[in-house]
């Protein structure tokens, strides 16, 4: 009896000791972890702040560019500036021919690139089966998207202007820009097509419609808003590019508005470049340069902003 109680006592003691040891150990670990945790938390908040700042830098950069352009050029924007051709060897007057030229070029480019781009995207997303051919086509599109703009210019010069004998003209410029904006349109159309739920297709096919009927009557209408958004982005890309039209469509100065697709024209981006680097009086025409830049920014960013807002609305509706 005695013996057993002794053993019990000893047991209890031992357990207690172990418990104690564990407790102190735990406390120790707790302390360590506590300091470690605060350090980790601090590090995390510091690094997250750096991440936040780097994101803010982008907004800051955009803001600075737009601010400098508007603050310096807003006074140049007058009714005359927007509706008159340049006068006095481009030191006075307006930029009407440039606006008309840029509108012609980018609309022309989109008229050519939009059908081809949408059709390509339909093939890639609706018809194509995974395999070597699809890989090659995708690689081609990705590479086309990566071709430098000045190389498009060289291509347009060699192929459209010289080989096809179009001369320096709206048509040659629009074709060159179309080749360049094709990947943009394919990309956004594919995104729009992917967003159409498969149940739509299955329902239509289940009702006995053919593949083409399904695409034309069901998939395309559902994807249309997204596809049009891509079209807008394509126009704005084409409107802002300079290098592809330098050798194919744009000229320093022409007092006439274009009357046929074979006319050479002035364009906003090229006009900025010419005034800023090769004009007769670079310093004296600064306000005209800023003014032209504002018109171009307003045109391009305006279209992009419209597309972004529209797309955000669409996404909200879809989800």
């Amino acid at each position, binding site marked *: 009896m005695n013996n057993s109680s002794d053993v019990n006592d000893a047991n209890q003691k031992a357990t207690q000791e172990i418990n104690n040891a564990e407790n102190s150990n735990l406390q120790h670990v707790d302390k360590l972890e506590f300091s470690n945790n605060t350090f980790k938390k601090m590090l995390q908040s510091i690094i997250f702040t750096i991440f936040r700042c*780097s994101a803010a830098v982008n907004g800051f*950069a955009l803001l600075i560019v737009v601010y400098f*352009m508007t603050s310096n050029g807003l006074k140049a924007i007058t009714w005359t500036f927007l509706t008159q051709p340049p006068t006095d060897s481009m030191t006075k007057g307006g930029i009407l021919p440039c606006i008309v030229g840029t509108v012609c070029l980018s609309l022309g480019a989109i008229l050519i690139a939009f059908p081809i781009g949408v059709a390509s995207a339909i093939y890639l997303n609706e018809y194509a089966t995974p395999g070597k051919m699809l890989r*090659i*086509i995708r*690689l081609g599109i990705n590479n086309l998207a990566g071709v*430098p703009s000045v190389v498009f210019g060289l291509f347009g010069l060699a*192929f459209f202007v010289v080989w096809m004998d179009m001369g320096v003209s709206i048509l040659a410029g629009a074709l060159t820009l179309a080749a360049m904006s094709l990947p943009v349109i394919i990309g956004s159309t594919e995104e729009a097509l992917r967003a159409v739920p498969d149940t739509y297709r299955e329902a239509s096919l289940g009702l006995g419609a053919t593949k083409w009927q399904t695409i034309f009557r069901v998939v395309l209408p559902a994807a249309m808003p997204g596809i049009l958004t891509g079209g807008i982005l394509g126009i704005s890309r084409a409107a802002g590019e300079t290098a592809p039209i330098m050798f194919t469509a744009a000229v320093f100065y022409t007092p006439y508005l274009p009357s046929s697709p074979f006319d050479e024209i002035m364009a906003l981006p090229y006009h*900025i470049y010419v005034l800023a680097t090769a004009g007769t009086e670079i310093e004296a025409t600064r306000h005209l340069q800023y003014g032209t830049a504002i018109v171009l920014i307003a045109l391009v*960013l305006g279209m992009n902003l419209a597309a972004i807002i529209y797309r955000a609305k669409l996404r909200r509706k879809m989800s």
Partner: protein
Amino acid sequence: MKTNSRSTDRAIQSVFFMIALASIMILFMISVFLFMEGISILNHVSLWDFIFGEYWYPTSDPPDFGIYPLIIGSIATTIVSAVISIPLGVMTAVYLAEIATARFREIVKPIVELLAALPSVVIGFFGMVVIAPFLQDHFDIATGLNLFNASLMLGFMSIPTICSISEDAIYSVPNNLKEASLALGATHLETITRVILPASISGISTAVILGMSRAIGETMVVLMVAGGAAMVPESIFDPVRPLPASIAAEMAEAPFRGEHYAALFATGIVLFVFTFSFNIVADYISNKYRQVGDSTL
């Protein structure tokens, strides 16, 4: 009736297939026409002298067609711009995909897209009239139009490319990886650096390569801002003349189908080869190391 509609369907499919080949056709024609117009430069200089020749004096008599300083100019601007654009682009992507609340995401994402939409000529103009005088005043250098200025502008032009592709990659890391890491007691930061970034590294590498490809091919910025001196730069504030700038600046004056004309097309070929190989490498990485969920870790 049934066979009829099926055959129309097949016909329609082949029409779409033909149209889808347009991109490859254009790419093919670009290389054909560049070579057709540019290859004749080899009648005047050897390939070695063209690429490694140190003097680019296309209009002097006899002319020198060595594009080595132009290649170095392009590579230098691209590398310096990458130093700016890679950290900023990737960090913005991490912020957008991991840290930002839904509300900030909806603000920051369009801003990055708008930054991408700014026409290159406007950025070049900004570099000329705002950054160049600033550099000249504050750094005591001969000209504000130099390698550094051009790289800064190029950096901000390639941030959107790097950011949006990296963000897609980070976003598509499976959620269970993230949850597993957090459940093991890792902090959010540890999860990002040890789990999410390694899992999305192939996408981020693709993004970086495409961003650099964009920078090396960008024309208007280097044409307006880089300074235009065809020399191998010795400091970051030296003016340079990257490949696209040389093409764009000289094409208007080059006599049609003369040596100079051919030399510029050949320069275009070199530039095309640069961006083409960048894109092939990017494509290879993104396919070979495709994110297949947990197995990539």
